[in-house]
């Protein structure tokens, strides 16, 4: 064991020196390798962060949402239904929710108008809280400039902006306008005591199935959407985009693998001579392979580290400037926010598998070929 470790140390030492000697060739390789890792890592971290972000937001939303259907289409739900739902066992809280979309003809953007679920916002009539995308879309000159919008009925309405949302979870709040219930009803011309839908909080998540069954009996016309349904939809959306990126990047990885194999097999005369010498003076094929594996390992490690770190900075400090258009979609209101840093083991393992494994596979045969040089060749 001690011998083994020391032998590895000699091999690593020699390899490092050899890498330094062929600085130019290896720098090129490492740069390209790092770029590949960088692109893939950025895409993966970005979509994982979005996914995570969506998860955080969803964690705050009620377990079950109940919508009224009329002829299969979404309708306003009367407040009387709240009572029925609250009567079911296992239900912790029931709340009518008010929200709707609004098309802003000034700049062609869609806003989400919403009455906040929890009362802690304490919005007074005439006040609004805005997502940070709205000020941008409207070219607000200062943060709390009043918001003027034209209601459906053609009335011009003015809201004083109390605050804009802080950056966390901006993904889902960018286009959000929070207003008071009274404003909401008058803006959209709604009768009292109807809601967009009803949010149901449930004590034990395992009971959702039973509760939905019971609720279906009381409200045969309603649609029930569970939080996990929504979560699934989100996950799929993000996964799909990320997968697409990866599939595109696969071409890049393949090209890189070919390039790496080429590099590894096109030994310079100098390098071939070195290997010949080593073999003649008593290095075994296994020693040379181990040395070359050290070389590959050091290169991979360096490139993996560099690519990952730069991707991390790119995604979490520069909002993935290079990829936003592809991954976020093509909305007019463009969320511009710092993603909460988030990476996990699966991501890193996957990244490792799709970059280091192809590189290693592509270089193994050339390495072996170089290592099996005839030891007597240096005699000539």
């Amino acid at each position, binding site marked *: 064991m*001690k*011998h*083994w*470790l*020391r*032998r590895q*140390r*000699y*091999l690593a030492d*020699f390899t490092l*020196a050899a890498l330094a*000697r062929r600085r130019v060739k290896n720098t090129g390789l490492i740069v390209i390798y790092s770029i590949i890792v960088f692109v893939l890592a950025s895409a993966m971290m970005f979509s994982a962060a979005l996914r995570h972000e969506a998860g955080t937001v969803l964690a705050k939303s009620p377990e079950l949402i109940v919508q009224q259907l009329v002829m299969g289409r979404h309708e306003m739900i009367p407040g009387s239904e709240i009572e029925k739902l609250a009567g079911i066992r296992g239900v912790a809280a029931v709340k009518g929710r008010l929200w709707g979309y609004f098309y802003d003809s000034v700049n062609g953007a869609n806003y989400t108008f919403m009455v906040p679920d929890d009362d802690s916002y304490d919005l007074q009539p005439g006040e609004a809280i805005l997502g940070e995308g709205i000020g941008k879309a409207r070219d607000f000159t200062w943060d709390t400039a009043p918001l003027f919008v034209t209601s459906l009925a053609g009335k011009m309405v003015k809201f004083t902006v109390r605050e804009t949302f802080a950056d966390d979870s901006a993904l889902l709040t960018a286009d959000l306008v929070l207003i008071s219930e009274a404003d909401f009803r008058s803006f959209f011309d709604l009768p009292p005591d109807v809601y967009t839908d009803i949010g149901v909080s449930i004590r034990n998540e395992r009971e959702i199935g039973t509760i939905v069954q019971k609720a279906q009996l009381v409200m045969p016309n309603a649609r029930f959407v569970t939080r996990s349904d929504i979560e699934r939809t989100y996950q799929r959306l993000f996964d799909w985009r990320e997968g697409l990126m990866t599939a595109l990047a696969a071409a890049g990885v393949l090209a890189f693998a070919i390039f790496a194999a080429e590099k590894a097999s096109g030994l310079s005369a*100098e390098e071939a*001579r*070195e290997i*010949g*010498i*080593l*073999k*003649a*003076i*008593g*290095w*075994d*094929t*296994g*020693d040379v392979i181990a040395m070359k594996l050290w070389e590959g390992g050091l290169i991979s490690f360096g490139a993996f580290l560099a690519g990952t770190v730069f991707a991390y900075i790119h995604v979490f400090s520069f909002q993935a400037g290079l990829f936003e258009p592809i991954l976020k979609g093509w909305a007019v209101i463009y969320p511009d926010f710092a993603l909460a840093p988030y990476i996990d083991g699966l991501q890193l393992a996957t990244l490792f598998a799709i970059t280091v494994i192809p590189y290693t596979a592509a270089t193994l045969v050339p390495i072996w070929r170089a290592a099996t040089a*005839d*030891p*007597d060749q*240096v*005699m*000539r």
Partner: protein
Amino acid sequence: MISLKNVSKLYNEGRPNEVCAAQDIDLELARNKVTVLTGPSGSGKTTLLSMIGCLTRPTTGRVFVDGAMVSGLPEKFQTELRRTKFGFVFQRFNLIRGVSVIENVMLPAAPLGPEYHELRERAQSRLERLGLGAKADMPIEFLSGGETQRAAIARALINDAPVLIADEPTANLDTVLTERFLEIVGELQSEGKTVVMTSHDPRIWQSSHVNTVVRMQDGRIIGVDA
């Protein structure tokens, strides 16, 4: 110490450009003797030397080192044998450029995994003995021809191998350096080492340090002068 029985070596076996570089060779090399292989260019000296030093396997015939047959061994064991039994000095010295003198000297020991400081001291003592102690940390390419050769000898001695093998060691050296080389060979012999080398340099095979001269032609031994 080393004996070859009916050894032949074919290159490019079975192809139209087949060459028989050594043919039916029987040879005994005694312990603690200096042997020189000589003969015209292309006569198979280098080929024979690499079979003696386990660098190549003979196509047919057997090679014994210390009574054990080594010719049928897999490459891995030939390598193991090579690093414990033989030290090599090549015609073009074959030191690795860009690496310091002492590290070049240490290289043959690396796969054995010795303790680093111990190995370094060992290398330093070899270099000092050959008068290169002060140049240990210089890059190898800064050394002069004679110094390079002595560095190569130091490398050959690092594993304390009992046999030194040298292919045309003096081909690039002037008379003074050749003399110096022969002195070193004499010293090694007096320490109990066995030396085998090739040369077509009369200064070598006429030297008093040499015990046996093996003459070769067309891949065969045509005479042994003891």
